[in-house]
């Protein structure tokens, strides 16, 4: 079956715990689907070639670059975006740690870092070393902070989880 790039396909996903459906064209990127079809503007797009990590979201428990995935391919998936981190408007411990440690400046890369760090914390038992943190975030580019305070923030969040 051949479909035109502008034909539409219905895509249903669970986003931040809520079932959502919307139409997408076969070529709609997941990042654009989240932002423009579902109105979740928190995921920023930094390069559209899968390098900078700004658009990182969690799909079925794993971080992905939402600019590299076509929306129809995630039909039926469970997705977490940055909007899913705070509860009832209160910052999560990870988000609080970023604020306390001054782990963000312009904020554009921040949602991607938060999602990468969420996955890291989720999969770690015990406190993270600086080396482990730097390795885990080396696929996310921040142009403002020089990473020092981001590392501090993730380490503080990891210490809080284990204390």
């Amino acid at each position, binding site marked *: 079956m051949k479909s035109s790039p502008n034909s539409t396909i219905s895509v249903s996903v669970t986003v931040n715990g809520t079932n959502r459906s919307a139409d997408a064209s076969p070529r709609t990127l997941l990042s654009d689907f989240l932002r423009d079809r579902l109105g979740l503007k*928190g995921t920023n797009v930094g390069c*559209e070639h899968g390098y900078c990590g700004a658009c990182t979201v969690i799909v079925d428990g794993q971080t992905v670059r939402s600019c590299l995935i076509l929306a129809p391919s995630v039909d039926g998936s469970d997705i977490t975006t940055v909007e899913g981190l705070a509860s009832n408007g209160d910052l999560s411990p990870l988000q609080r740690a970023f604020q306390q440690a*001054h782990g963000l400046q312009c904020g554009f890369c921040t949602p991607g870092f938060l999602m990468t760090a969420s996955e890291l914390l989720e999969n770690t038992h015990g406190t993270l070393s600086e080396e482990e943190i730097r390795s885990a975030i080396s696929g996310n580019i921040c142009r403002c902070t020089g990473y020092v305070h981001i590392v501090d923030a993730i380490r503080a969040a990891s210490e809080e989880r284990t204390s």
Partner: protein
Amino acid sequence: MTPNQPRLVGARVARVEDPRFLKGEARYIANIVLAEMRHARFVRSPLAHARITNVDTSDVPDGVAVFTGDDWAEHGIECTSRYEGFQPATMPILAVGKVRYVGEPIAMVVADDPYLAEDAAEAVMVDYDPLPALTTVDDALADDAPLIHEHWDSNLYVPRAYASPDYDEETADTLSISARLSHSRHSGVPMEGRAVLAEFTAGRFKVHTATQIPHLIRTAVATAIGLPERDVQIVSPDVGGGFGVKAQAYPEEVACALAARALKVPVKWIEDRREHFLASHHSREHTHQASLHYTEDGTVRGLTAELYVDMGAYSVFPWTSTMDTGMAMGILPGPYRFTGYKVDGFPTCTNKTPYGAYRGVSRPAACFTIERLVDWMARDRGLDRLEARRKNLVRQEDYPWTNAGDLVYDGGSLSESIDVMKEWIGYDELVESLRDDRKKGKLRGLGMAIFTEQSAHTTEEFKKRGVPIVFGYETATLRLDPTGHLTIAASIHSHGQGLETTLAQFAGETLGLPMERVKVVFGDTDQVSYGAGTFASRSAVLAGGAARIAATELRQKLTRIAAYLLEASEADLVFNENGVEVVGSPGLGVSMAELCRITYQRPDLLPEGELPTLESTKTYDAAPGTGTYTNALHMGVIEIDAGTGGIDLQKYWVVEDCGVMINPLVVEGQIHGGVAQGIGSALLEEMIYDENGQLLTTTFMDYLLPTAQDVPFIATRHLETPSPSTEGGIKGMGEGGAIAPAAVVAGAVEDALSEIGHVYVSRVPLTPERVLGHIADARRQQ
């Protein structure tokens, strides 16, 4: 400041602006959706230099609007220097008749959907008659070079020259070392690219644009379209990083405005990353032919330099195409007290993307040149590199010191920073241990650079630079509302620097207000007074200064009113989180909310003649306007992998002095970020053009940004020498981190290879290929 008053200045306050960014609620332009909004895409030149012979839009699908150069030929962005002999190069909105760099906009399509706009742009067919591409300064300045702008006499924007009166005398009978030193072309590359969303309603433009300089963009857009500035509103909401790239006016801003007026719908354009590399302004590319003159004992007497700066195809608004050259001419002597100086500057037009600002503006290249030369002099004279610097630095008793380039250094702590650094890092032991490592075959080395960072310079400095608009001041309006909450409306911007927090700290303290009672707004020309915006490490000093002076005026008025209401003496009142209280009588006072309510709503209770308003607007220029100088000493340790040429940057230390700190947490964040960008300059970042003027580095796979594994932990120590010339003694410091790393890493490479041979590192970035070249050079000496 009276006792018992809470201190906000100097406190490590967590930023108040953070929650919206952390929750994904930031208002970047890409996130703004307007009814009827349509999407633009630009057709860009694939050639560096060519005549356009035909633009065929007949295949553009129905329902898609298309504009070409002829539609807007009468509009353009002009920025002509006041320097005599400057050759103007007005930037077209869409190219007319000729293209001058790869990426130059030729046509614009506007469609219902961004995907459809990309498809439609592919349908525009352009025919070219190629011309020779001039991709280097040498090519462009050759006698037989074709002219990029046909009406010019040569491809030089304007020749510049300066010599100190005692140059000949000081440099006679000295030793000299000469070299050609260069920085590659690179750019700030913020994570958010440029973005524009323009509307035209009721005869008025509203242009959202991701910019650092909203009012200057208003001037540029209004001038290009031919409108009173009143009829243009510029809104720059949350901006995802700037670093200077967003401190220029761009054709896309004018194009979206014109298209919105023509189509009667909002028009949005979101730059993609490839466009960013091709069409957002570049920076940094300098080549210096320089000689340092010194005596046998290692006293520097003079400097001779020719500065070649590749400014690309057009003069950029508001800087002109002479800014980098001019600033380098002033700062090249660095923190040193020699007086003999002769410099010639060659800002040159080439077939490359226009060249604008990037954090540090020319100072990374200037610092690189002087610091490499001083290292080489130290080696030649057998001196310790740090002590060779100390011997030649401006001394405490010299301030205010007019440097050889005619800049006035107002104060600092240069020699002290060396003392602090030496003790902190155990310098002597470190030098020993690195030498031992090298004897065992490891390629480990230490590098260093010391510099002064001109900041918050205003009228006097920009007058000298020949720019058409002299960036002389900033303005802040403070307004207390009847509930005792303060709004600061400032003419600067903030795109990561944390000014929503630091301005609130700096001005809020004067009124004893806790952070949660102060809100800072900026970025909307309808809401704030005219001002230049955020660049040149100026916003905390200038907008902060204006806000603090306005706060002082409000405090005086509130003091008069409170004294009258409390029947107390003005001298006995203190401002704190409870409001205004009588010293020594806790509980006897009036809350800020009550004081403000009475002022606005019970004017009958006010002292006679006191007007019922709590507003103050102040403009501040940090006189004398020559800038206040932050200083810093950076040091770093590297290890080279002899097999791959890879550099592992293992340690990095910064001792800096930016005067009184408003918020050390924010200061450190700015240092870290600047150093990381400097590390990019030192190791990774390079815009590479081929001989036809094609930019080969247009993705993050070819143009490498530093990651968390390239940037080490950056350790910082602060000295606090108050500025003698600014409100509160603060100095600007946003750019400083980026200035020194290239010089530090280059010196460390020489040190690391010193057991093998003496190399001279005169070019960055130090890619593995270049490092292998240096290793081979060193080995050839054996």
